[in-house]
């Protein structure tokens, strides 16, 4: 049984500056896997490379056992990998409904799309209330819900969530984290990138700590929560 996603010795560079320096990790079917680490550790770069927006300089990325590191981004979506990017990146001048429909861009099953729009709207009721409103008018937290809802519209096998709690109020952050738990329970595999280590680790099956482009520590979420280095570096304890 191979993992859903396997990353082997991945290296990514911006010009001469190497942002990811040979990392390996796996995401198992049905689990929540988290990458934590400070700003600039290479977490976002890793996700953007997995979804095809960046090209690795070395290493391999296998999705369901097949290499995807040379597949263009728009075809990776079709394989069942959806990415909710850092900073949300909703389409501000389109309505919420149009944003959700773009998430289902590659699907042709109208009935299934309609059903999944309802699912997204029941997951995030605020989206239902504002369906015909321009997405740019939503608050940060609402935009995050829209970005997650939109990513789910492709019915992905693997959902990449980059910093879903960034810039959100504690209440909104709780809501987003509760949704992650809910999605896991309904069988979606998730690769999560978070700066909020406490929240992320407590809901993760597996977690990796990234420091300046390298994975320095790994374990189950519970193990890392108890780890002294992690507690000092990421949980703000002495």
């Amino acid at each position, binding site marked *: 049984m191979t993992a859903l996603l396997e990353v082997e010795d991945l290296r990514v560079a911006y010009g001469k500056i190497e942002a990811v320096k040979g990392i390996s990790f796996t995401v198992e079917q049905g689990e929540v896997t988290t990458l934590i680490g400070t700003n600039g550790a290479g977490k976002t770069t890793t996700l953007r490379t997995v*979804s*095809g*927006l960046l090209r690795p300089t070395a290493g391999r990325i296998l999705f369901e056992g097949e290499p995807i590191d040379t597949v*263009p*981004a*728009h*075809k990776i*979506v*079709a394989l069942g990998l*959806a*990415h909710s*990017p850092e900073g949300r*990146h909703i*389409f*501000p*001048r*389109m309505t919420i409904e*149009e944003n959700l*429909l*773009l*998430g289902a*861009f*590659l699907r042709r099953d109208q009935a299934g799309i309609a059903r999944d729009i309802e699912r997204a709207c029941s997951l995030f009721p605020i989206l239902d209330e504002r369906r015909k409103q321009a997405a*740019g008018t939503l608050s940060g937290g609402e935009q995050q819900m829209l970005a997650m809802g*939109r*990513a789910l519209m*492709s019915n992905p096998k693997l959902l990449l969530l980059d910093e879903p709690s960034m810039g959100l109020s504690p209440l909104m952050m709780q809501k987003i984290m509760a949704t992650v738990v809910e999605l896991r329970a309904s069988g979606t595999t998730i690769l999560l990138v978070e700066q909020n280590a406490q929240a992320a680790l407590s809901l993760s099956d597996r977690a990796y700590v990234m420091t300046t482009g390298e994975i320095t520590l790994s374990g189950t979420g519970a193990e890392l929560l108890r780890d002294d280095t992690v507690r000092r570096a990421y949980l703000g304890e002495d």
Partner: protein
Amino acid sequence: MHELPQNLANGLMLGLMYGLIAIGYTMVYGIVQLINFAHGEIFMIGGFGALTAYAALPHGTSLWLALPVMILGGVIASVLTATAAERFAYRPLRTAPRLAPLITAIGLSIALQQVVWAFYPGAKKAISFPQFAGDTVDLGLFHLQRNDLFLLAAAPLCMLILASFVRFTRTGRAMQATAQDPDTAKLMGINTDRIIVIAFALGAAFAAVAAVAHGLRYGQVDFMMGFLAGLKAFTAAVLGGIGNIYGAMLGGLVLGVAESLATAYIQNVPGMHQLGGGAWANVWAFVLLIVVLLVRPQGLLGERVADRA
């Protein structure tokens, strides 16, 4: 007394043509943030394509029957040129500093002029373009040149087709998404390379229609006709808010009317009598551009640069 309506009508006709060409500038800019300075030549090549199609028809074919074939010939010539330019000149420079594609566009513009000049039979001088015979059409308050009726019908029709395409088709929505956020569009499964080609092709097709209108209106085509027309259309696109397709048409109309009115009336302003007349038309067109950019740098209908289609 009906001098004003006539001047307005002349300006609007000119404006429809500027607007049609301006759509090509604005669509390409909206999606790849490139000012395609070769777009004037794409327009010129549309004129030559239409002329070639006309020449290929049996001698004595009525212009009414020939017109659809000429439009098709022009569209094919322009679209092929534009998509080839995108594929071989601009795409390799997609990630290069922005000056590189800009200089390429200017070079391409000159190259296309010279290719037509050197290789199209008889193109070293202006070549006559077929026109409808007959008087001007009297519409009460003003007259229209018979040959302008084509423009009057074609320009609004093109706008309608474009607006419905962008709003209601799947590819049109993908185009809006690509204009607003290209990376995220890819994450939705949109092949943004394909969308860019479509934007170039659509702009080229409208430029070809404008070139047929230009040929009918002036009765000739020449290899330099894209220079000033392209510059004016670019001005129209900026005036209307570059990146916005409705802005391109609005900018064209405003520019055409301003040019027409300035030509007719500036000389009546005390102390400015020597600045009127056709010779100053281009000056007033660019003065208008400068004034609008000072007051409203984003153009008439422009909003933030990042998210327009």
